[in-house]
């Protein structure tokens, strides 16, 4: 897999995504939010040893690109990175890496790079050197500019992660979450969108009534969510870049739990209508027409589309306690999917459609469970007492969820194999209900 070709230009897709992000930053409705801090709480002893050397040509830029890459890779738990003060040399090109020195430090890989000015624009050039073989594993050049350096760093981390682990990275994604701020007696619910590392946090909606259940559209441009701003629940779809929003369902009773179909054309949601009984419906977004999925006196809620978009998974307590059921969009009877444990709720399907994350009750606590759909087997991934609202990373490697720590709402992640866990703290208030964007 050694790449001996000269630097490749990045794909159009990358350039496009950069433009989209810039548009988002310019949105007039958003304002800055205090960032989140991320800490690894459970790591791998077998992590890959890697060192990211400070990049040349940083100039006056406030963004330390190498530090962004280092933090991303370290936070994944798959890599153990070498502190700068322990680095034996500071090369900025593959040719000047003295592999013997790095081998002595038991480094598997060394990342070097530089920022190169190209007229008005910048290029982030970087190389990954295998310090065992001396071979250049990856060489890349990402066009960027001074205001997109963090994103360029996240993209570099994605490429490094994929080259070494064979799985796409998800660092250049975004997260949405609900932040509760203000005194208990004067709460504000804020819908926040941030980079995957918690930076660049922007409030896109601020309300004195609850905001719930944000869900990204498959193209990553819009968020569906529930807002009680009219003192009753309603489902909205908001374009993140422009702030333009539509109330897509404001019927009598409950309007809740929106979930996008994989092609983005439909929303599954929960309606109670006048009789107060919660059932699952599927709305065609273009026509706003509704198709009823379930009709059961139990609570049916928290729908989630299957990977092929042909079925919906949902929570129902028709058996007495909440469990996950599956129903085809073509109709027919709902089939129960979870049997282990007395409480399984809020399913989110894995990217490959073979597994799902759920909220499961274990002991006295609510934890994140991972269900293998073929066998029905459930593994408990998290260790908290109130771990809810799972959202799966678009590369399928991690689950982000809401947790409670010392009375505060925090976000946390756990890898889908349970080996790596992180905690994401807000500097103020409670954060909850994370939604991980698709790959952008």
């Amino acid at each position, binding site marked *: 897999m050694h790449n001996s070709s000269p630097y490749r230009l990045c794909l159009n897709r990358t350039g496009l995504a950069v433009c989209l992000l810039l548009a988002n930053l310019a949105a007039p409705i958003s304002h800055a939010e205090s960032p989140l801090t991320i800490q690894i709480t459970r790591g791998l002893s077998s992590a890959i040893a890697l060192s990211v050397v400070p990049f040349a040509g940083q100039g006056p830029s406030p963004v330390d690109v190498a530090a962004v890459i280092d933090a991303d890779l370290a936070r994944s738990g798959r890599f153990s990175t070498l502190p700068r003060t322990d680095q034996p040399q500071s090369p900025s090109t593959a040719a000047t890496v003295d592999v013997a020195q790095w081998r002595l430090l038991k480094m598997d890989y060394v990342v070097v790079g530089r920022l190169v000015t190209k007229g008005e624009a910048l290029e982030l050039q970087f190389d990954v050197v295998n310090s065992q073989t001396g071979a250049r594993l990856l060489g890349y050049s990402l066009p960027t500019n001074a205001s997109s350096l963090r994103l360029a760093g996240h993209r570099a981390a994605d490429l490094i992660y994929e080259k070494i682990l064979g799985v796409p990275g998800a660092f250049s994604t975004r997260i949405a979450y609900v932040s509760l701020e203000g005194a208990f007696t004067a709460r504000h619910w804020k819908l926040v969108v941030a980079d995957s590392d918690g930076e660049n946090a922007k409030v896109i909606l601020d309300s004195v009534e609850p905001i719930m259940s944000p869900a990204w559209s498959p193209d990553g441009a819009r968020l569906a969510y529930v807002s009680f701003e009219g003192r009753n629940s309603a489902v909205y779809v908001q374009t993140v870049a422009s702030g333009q929003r539509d109330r897509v369902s404001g019927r009598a009773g409950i309007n809740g739990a929106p979930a996008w179909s994989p092609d983005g054309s439909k929303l599954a949601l929960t309606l109670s209508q006048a009789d*107060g009984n919660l059932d699952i419906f599927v709305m065609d977004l273009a026509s706003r027409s509704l198709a009823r999925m379930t009709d059961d006196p139990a*609570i049916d*809620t928290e729908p989630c589309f299957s990977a092929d978009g042909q079925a919906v998974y949902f929570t129902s307590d028709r058996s007495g306690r909440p469990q996950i059921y599956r129903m085809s969009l073509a109709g027919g009877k709902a089939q129960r999917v979870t049997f282990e444990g007395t409480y399984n709720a809020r399913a989110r399907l894995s990217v490959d459609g073979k597994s799902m994350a759920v909220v499961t009750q274990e002991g006295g606590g609510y934890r994140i469970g991972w269900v293998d759909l073929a066998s029905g087997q459930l593994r408990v991934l998290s260790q908290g007492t109130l771990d809810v609202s799972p959202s799966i990373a678009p590369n399928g490697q991690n689950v982000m969820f809401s947790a409670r720590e010392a009375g505060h709402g925090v976000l946390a992640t756990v890898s889908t194999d349970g080996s790596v866990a992180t905690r994401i703290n807000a500097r103020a208030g409670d954060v909850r209900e994370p939604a991980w964007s698709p790959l952008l």
Partner: protein
Amino acid sequence: MSRALKVLLVVSLGALLAGCPKKPTTVPDATQGDSVAATTDTAGRGYSGVGKGVAEATATTGSTVKIQAIIHFDYDSSLIKPEYASVIAAQARRLASDRSVKLRLEGHTDERGSAEYNIGLGERRAQAVKRALLLEGANEAQLATVSFGSERPMAEGHNEAAWSQNRRVELVDGSR
């Protein structure tokens, strides 16, 4: 951005205390007079804060919302406990005697469990209160339900003392 309604609340203490078999930890003693309503208002509902928040709320809507009664529930239950029979009967009488009176039944759960499922549990509690009121003479048109799930706790703690306060249906004046 937000066009959310801000509502100033005044709690009807008599109804509240009559409706609660155990004195809630967040409801101060009645001897404190006027401050009680404000404290209960903010502790229980959290619509508005001190100073600016209250003034703004009044200016925005000019209306007040009155909690007529609060009915508390056991864990994972929407069964109305016998001790609330008199509260239900009194509210139903009030509704039957004046058909212009409307009540909004706001269902709540404690913080545990999945957020949207809790919306369902809160609605189930609100519906249970609605059925009880209908049986005792209220009209369908007088009653509206809403569920806030675990979003609007009344007590701030993370223990059973708080949870038992938070599992509730608030009977609020007005249809919305």
